[in-house]
């Protein structure tokens, strides 16, 4: 992902300047921005490389990458940071796609009531039996930040969801 960051930064700037949806947080808060992108193959210097671009044409089956960035503008260390994110409407979570440095990632299959790691999620099947949950059954994703987020520091979490 790291080679893609310069482009993404440019994109964020563009997004913020064009749309006012993601207003800057007031000083003293944690600033958050969320955006939807697609991975596209482009030719750069004669090589095919993948790049993240704002969602353009999106049809069923396409994978969308949702990224949320957060920055501590409180002037003090921020602790116990928990980000929860429902899987977007008309979408299914793509297995093993959730990312987030220095976070523990858990999922919910019951609308956000309870969360567990991917390999601990259980679905109640017929006749009292249980089975492992499928990624397509996840309703929410939760990132629990480990430790404090230092003053002025930022973090980023992301996941992919396919349009149903």
């Amino acid at each position, binding site marked *: 992902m790291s080679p893609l960051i310069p482009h993404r930064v440019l994109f964020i700037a563009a997004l913020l300047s064009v749309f006012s949806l993601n207003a800057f947080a007031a000083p003293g808060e944690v600033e958050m921005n*969320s955006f939807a992108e697609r991975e596209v193959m482009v030719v750069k210097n004669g090589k095919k490389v993948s790049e993240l671009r704002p969602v353009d044409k999106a049809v069923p089956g396409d994978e969308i990458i949702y990224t949320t960035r957060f920055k501590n503008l409180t002037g003090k260390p921020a*602790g116990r940071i928990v980000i929860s994110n429902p899987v*977007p409407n008309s979408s299914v979570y793509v297995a093993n796609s959730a990312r987030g440095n220095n976070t523990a990632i858990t999922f919910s299959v019951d609308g956000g009531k309870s969360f567990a790691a991917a390999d601990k999620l259980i679905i109640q099947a017929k006749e009292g039996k249980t089975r492992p949950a499928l990624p397509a059954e996840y309703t929410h994703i939760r990132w629990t930040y480990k430790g404090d987020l230092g003053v002025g520091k930022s973090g980023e979490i992301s996941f992919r969801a396919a349009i149903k």
Partner: protein
Amino acid sequence: MKTKARSSPSNIKLTALLVAGLMFGAAQNALAAGTAAGTSISNTATLAYEVLGVPQTDKTASSTPFVVDEKINLTVANGVSTNVVPGASTQVLLFTVTNNANSPLDFNLATNQVAAGDQFDATACTAYAESGATAGYQSAQDTATFIDELAIDTGINVYVVCSIPADRVDSDIALVGLTATARGDFTGVNGVYAATVGTAGAAITATAGADTVGTVDIVFSDVAGTEAGDAASDAKHSDRNTYSVVTAALTVTKTATLVCDPTNGVTNPKNIPGAITKWTIAVTNSGSADATLTTVSDTLSATLAHDANLVVPTNAATCDTAAGTAESAANAGFKVTSSVARDIGGNAAATSAFFTTNTADGLDIAGQVITATYATILPSDAGHTSNGLLKSGETVSIIFNTVVQ
């Protein structure tokens, strides 16, 4: 899917993973047509945090919503091939057209004659969509030449109706292609599909260039079909189906064998007055379809007389209609043989039977004209559903003698 942290035996774990994989695959397939075009999708994340141990107000952030675009996709598939006879009209070839797009669509239908790989072209072809009133092609009901408002993930029967030229022979085939082209008006709110009930919508153009934010763009995602002019991503799909000519091919052979003469007996007989000749008129069906025989007529030369008793001469003295021994009985002047056991005249499951010369029984002579009426000679039986039927591969022969005058 993670494979660690399982305490179950490895073989059980493997099974569980396999089942999970299969189920996930099934879930993927369920996305066939998918979310309706025009659906707005956005993502919202909520962040909770504390500062110096004091919980702060949750923060939320949402991505800019985008709308699901129109994915034009369709499948044309052929049904079973159709057997036809030469000269037949209103012969139906079955196809199905399935709307794999994420909105309802109309479809134009076009037929084409495939240039290579077959022996002939069907003529006067038109494609009709199933009306839904009565299943199967009904000429009075299935009159629409385009598909109107086909719902998402729905297939419909399309009937290509053609005529078959009269000059075709058994085993000839004609390949006919069907190309369906998606049509529709995208004039609804944010450019979503708008129904045009009763008429085919406008030609659809894929949205060129960048996405139009908040508006349904059109993406073609069909694959190429079998027919010329149908490429991938052109809002068309095509397939072809086969007319197979299946017809009876009848051959009639008439053979003569000189049996005897009154001087040489049965040894090297000559065609002198009094000589007896055995005639066989064989009808063979070498085609793939059954044939219903009607009549065969044979006019004897004026110099020949029919042997009323179908004698079997053994020497010069018995080379005579009266003096010879009848093969069956007096006045049983005709014999019919079949290549398969069947009802012949009144005889059940026979391979041969005799017919009289002097009574009307299906094989008769009037003057010099012998007439065989097959409906009477070959009645229907367990293996033959109608009178006079000669099935593929069967032969039926009529045998009689003549005497040189």
